[in-house]
């Protein structure tokens, strides 16, 4: 590992020097879209990749690519070791006591579908309740809608407050009769940090399993499933410096052991006859077909990179950037920021500017080299609730700087000038 494995400072955040060293690891930050330096403020959608991740995958393809498991030759053994080592790294990273509890899937979406299919179809019946929240990403909503329709179950939603936090006053009533409580750890639209430990505990006392969408949490804060005491948790590699095409479903071992397969075929079987088969133990039972081996290696390298920095520092730095952004953007006239105050949020900021539609604002920012997301952020019902068709979302990560926030502010001022807004 070249850089970032030994931080230069022991401060609890990142110094400008640390950030400069981190930025040097991200080749894409040297790109100049429209002739401008790339200001990448869309990491909540997908983060950029450090050379350590790119090289780990490159090295795998150059030196030891082969299909894993059962290959009786050296490079297949190397590939198998690397794939399983990545699983162990992920397990340690999220505080899982057992690597077999980490299932490699395509992304968090597939992980959540797996739970809805394999656990949900076994346990949810007519009249049962599936509890969600009003701030779920479509990926933690649509699989449950389909399960509810199939099983004639009822969907309920924990409402949100005006400032975009979960309103937990009626949680006990909502949890009555619930088999599943699925919720996000961090809102991808509002940046709200939810009290996962409390929510999981209350699900448990109501007899429901807890399913945590941790897509926005795992990249940006210390996550420990043993502390959360949840039952299932899913996240994607590509939002945490790793490659696309791989994600993780974590589940408590006894739950996973009791579940039937989701996708079926090679690699997930024990004994196969023409008429019937028995299935492999977890995690193999849920990893049918040749998995994303290079991507697992890349994810392992991303975990190493983040652990080299320390998740506490990642979280604190992002919090600092969020504070700066809230202060500077909040001081602009005709800018509305959605979501809670700094103490309950992370570096994901959704806003609107006067009557400028999010896409127009994003187009103008794009010409300045600034990448933001515009639209409903896979969160259409929440947008309806906020009463806006779309917002513009800026999200920050370890390679962003306060100077980039200044550029965002200037870009917004420019958009206001073009749209003739004071």
């Amino acid at each position, binding site marked *: 590992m070249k850089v970032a494995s030994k931080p230069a400072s022991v401060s609890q955040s990142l110094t400008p020097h640390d950030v400069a060293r981190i930025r040097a690891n991200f080749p894409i930050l040297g790109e100049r879209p429209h*002739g*401008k*330096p790339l200001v990448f403020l869309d990491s909540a959608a997908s983060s950029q990749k450090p050379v350590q991740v790119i090289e780990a995958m490159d090295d795998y393809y150059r030196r030891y690519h082969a299909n894993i498991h059962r290959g009786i030759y050296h490079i297949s053994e190397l590939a198998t070791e690397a794939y399983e080592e990545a699983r162990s790294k992920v397990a340690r990273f999220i505080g899982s006591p057992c690597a077999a509890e980490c299932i490699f899937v395509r992304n968090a979406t597939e992980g959540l579908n797996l739970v809805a299919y394999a656990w949900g179809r076994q346990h949810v019946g007519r009249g049962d309740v599936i509890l969600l929240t009003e701030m779920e990403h479509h990926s933690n909503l649509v699989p449950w809608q389909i399960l509810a329709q199939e099983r004639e179950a009822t969907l309920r939603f924990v409402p949100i407050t005006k400032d975009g936090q979960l309103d937990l006053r009626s949680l006990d009533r909502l949890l009555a009769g619930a088999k599943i409580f699925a919720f996000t750890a961090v809102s991808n639209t509002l940046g709200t940090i939810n009290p996962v430990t409390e929510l999981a505990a209350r699900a448990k006392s109501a007899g429901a399993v807890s399913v945590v969408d941790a897509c926005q949490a795992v990249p940006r804060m210390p996550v420990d499933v043993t502390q959360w005491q949840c039952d299932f948790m899913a996240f994607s590699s590509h939002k945490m410096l790793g490659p696309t095409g791989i994600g993780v479903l974590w589940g408590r071992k006894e739950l996973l052991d009791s579940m039937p397969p989701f996708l079926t075929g090679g690699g997930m079987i024990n004994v196969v006859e023409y008429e019937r088969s028995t299935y492999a133990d977890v995690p193999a039972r849920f990893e049918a077909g040749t998995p994303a081996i290079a991507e697992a290696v890349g994810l392992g390298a991303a975990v190493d990179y983040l652990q080299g920095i320390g998740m506490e520092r990642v979280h604190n730095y992002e919090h600092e950037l969020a504070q700066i952004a809230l202060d500077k953007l909040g001081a602009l006239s005709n800018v509305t920021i959605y979501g809670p105050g700094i103490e309950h949020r992370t570096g994901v900021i959704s806003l609107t500017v006067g*009557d*400028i*539609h*999010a*896409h*127009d604002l994003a*187009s*103008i920012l*794009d*010409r*300045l*080299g600034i990448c933001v997301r*515009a*639209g*409903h952020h896979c969160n*259409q019902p929440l*947008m309806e609730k906020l009463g806006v*068709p*779309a917002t513009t979302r800026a999200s920050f990560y370890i390679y962003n700087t306060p100077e980039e926030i200044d*550029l965002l502010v*200037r870009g917004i001022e*420019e958009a206001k000038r*073009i*749209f*003739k807004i004071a």
Partner: protein
Amino acid sequence: MQDDFSGMEELYRDFILDHYRNPRNAGTLEGADATYEDNNPLCGDRIRMDLKLRDGVIEDIKFKGRGCAISQASASLLTEVVKGKTVAEAARIGKEDVLENLGIQISAARLKCALLGLKVLKEALSLAAPDL
């Protein structure tokens, strides 16, 4: 460093902003011969058009929508263009005509915004005059 804002004015000329903020033929029509509504699921732009025909001519047209300046201005401009035209003439309007009317550079990512109004118009026309 980032003082070069050229091209931005090209993207949002005054008449685009004018059509966005003061859309022409805005609203709905009582007793319309055809109504069609569509949206762009990726960005949430939404447009509805109502048509009234007499003797093969678009006697009246109204639209209602929400979305970005480009989608709304494009739809507004289109209603001005087709009002009073025959159905056959309106049906011949193509993508290039719409972009030429807008007269601005549209990036690939925004093409769907610019062309949503045309898509809705075509669907409404085929409802109103299925034989065409």
